[in-house]
């Protein structure tokens, strides 16, 4: 059986990421270095394991998934590579999945490395791993959807440094905010919603309505950007 088209595109995309030093640094080395630093400085800043898990996943997702998807889509569109792929037999879904899948795979590999490092450093296992998994999946998919959407409105790879700032601030900012405050409305933002679920996974009390709000918020942060991205998606640069 031949390789599915999305997998063929994914493998090619992985090769391209490996060959582009800027993307490689931004999507692998920088988040890994940050992850190691967060583990190393945990005791100095008095940060608990749930907080560290939250920050690791948030930062990795932002750099590896959100920023990489935004820049990759913008670059491939401007290079007319998206249009080229669409001139062939691949479906739209296969093309997009092929571009996004390697980034997600890269993130999972990075998270696995960091999880091992945290385990060696003595990290505790969450009481409710399912809640952590739901939160992580929700946050990662919302970042992927926002990456595609941001890519739609980003005219060039250089401009991605500006166009990505709003969601970067909202997602990472709300996660950091959730470390300091427990107001219910923090869960309306993606980082805050994920923080609620991480805390709940580690046994911090959270009411069902609070969990529901957090899950609903992550679903909304995924579905709404995905729908807008689908409606506004462009396969070639604006002329």
């Amino acid at each position, binding site marked *: 059986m031949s390789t599915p088209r999305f997998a*063929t595109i994914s493998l*090619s995309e992985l090769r391209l990421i490996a060959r582009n030093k800027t993307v490689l640094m931004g999507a692998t080395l920088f988040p890994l270095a940050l992850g190691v630093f967060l583990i190393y400085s945990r005791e100095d800043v008095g940060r608990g394991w749930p907080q560290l898990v939250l920050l690791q996943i948030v930062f990795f997702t932002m750099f590896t998934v959100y920023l990489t998807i935004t820049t990759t889509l913008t670059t*491939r569109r401007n290079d007319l590579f998206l249009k*080229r792929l*669409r*001139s062939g*037999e*691949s*479906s739209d879904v296969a093309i997009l999945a092929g571009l996004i899948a390697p980034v997600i795979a890269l993130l999972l590999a990075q998270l696995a490395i960091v999880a091992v490092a945290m385990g060696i450093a003595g990290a505790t296992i969450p009481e409710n791993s399912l809640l952590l998994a739901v939160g992580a999946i929700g946050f990662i998919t919302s970042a992927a959807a926002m990456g595609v959407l941001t890519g739609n409105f980003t005219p060039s790879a250089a401009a991605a440094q500006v166009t990505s700032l709003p969601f970067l601030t909202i997602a990472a900012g709300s996660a950091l905010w959730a470390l300091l405050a427990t107001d219910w409305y923090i869960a309306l933002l993606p980082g805050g919603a994920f923080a609620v679920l991480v805390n709940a996974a580690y046994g911090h009390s959270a009411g069902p309505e609070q969990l529901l709000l957090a899950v609903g918020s992550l679903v909304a942060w995924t579905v709404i950007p995905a729908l807008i991205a689908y409606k506004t998606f462009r396969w070639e640069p604006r*002329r």
Partner: protein
Amino acid sequence: MPLLRPERTVDDGVMTDNHPLPPSPAKHTSNAITATGLRCFYGTFEAVRGVDLSVAHGEIFALLGTNGAGKTTTLETLEGHRAATSGAVQVLGLDPFCQRRALRPRVGIMLQESGFAGDLTVKETVALWLRLSSSEAASPANRARTITTALDSLELSNRAETRVQQLSGGQRRRLDLILATVNRPELLFLDEPTTGLDPESRERTWDVVQRLHRDGTTILLTTHYLEEAEAMADRIAIMHHGRIAVTGSIPEVLAAQPARIRFQLPDGAPSIETLTTSLRLSPQENITTDGRGLCTINTGDLDDSLFRLLSWARTQDHRLHRLSATEASLAEVFRSVSILPADSHTNTTNNNNNNTVNPQGVAA
């Protein structure tokens, strides 16, 4: 007789003026491409304004026109890259936009601008394209041979391991052509395939295209090189401001444009008005002068007009200096179309310049 016949269509050998043939099931099966009343907007700008077009199976059809005439928009609509705002389009019996996935395995597309991932090598690019294809040539058993043959055919073998971003513009165009043709498509779209190529590469490109054509591939192309269109195409259409102004085979298109007889009247020759009357110019003919005695007769029947002119000169014992008689060229037809106003889609009469005298001898 008008100089041009806008909105003229030729289908199955029957030419009709200003009355595009209605689509019929029979025609859809006999044509590789049929477009009726095709219109495309970019926001409020209407790029294609009611195009009727048919391309028969096995034909090479060239779409010509000035920059911004709507060629690429028309082509990309037929390729399925964009939806038509209105009108009916059928490509190999399918709607190219709604049935894109069913159509793609049967067509090859060479875009106007190359679209590559610059960090892949030439060989990796062709291999990726083949892995995404379902054709026999792309099967794992044939893939390596197909790549070698394709790179050889357009002399890119020595650049196989070079990253695409390091190729010259001409080499990128040749790689484009490889991707468009490597699956041996039934229908090939070529958007300005030879733009930016040196003469040798152009020749090689046309060799590849002609080989495919001999094997039965239908080809729709756009080009700015009129001599290429004249040499390659079975039929052409010249677009202007989003409409097809002229269409037909090369002889048909040239026949619609008057031939030209030029001569210098000797001193003491009669006035041009007298000459017009003496030559009994028909309403399809006119005579112009550039003010220095060089006369031009525009005629739809070169043989007859030349005979009458020479007979008159012999009878009057006038010697015609600098005499020449030429059929219209495609370049002249193109120029005539390109000066039409944007809202002109009915016929134009006479686009000649100064001192035009119609057959009745009235200066225009």
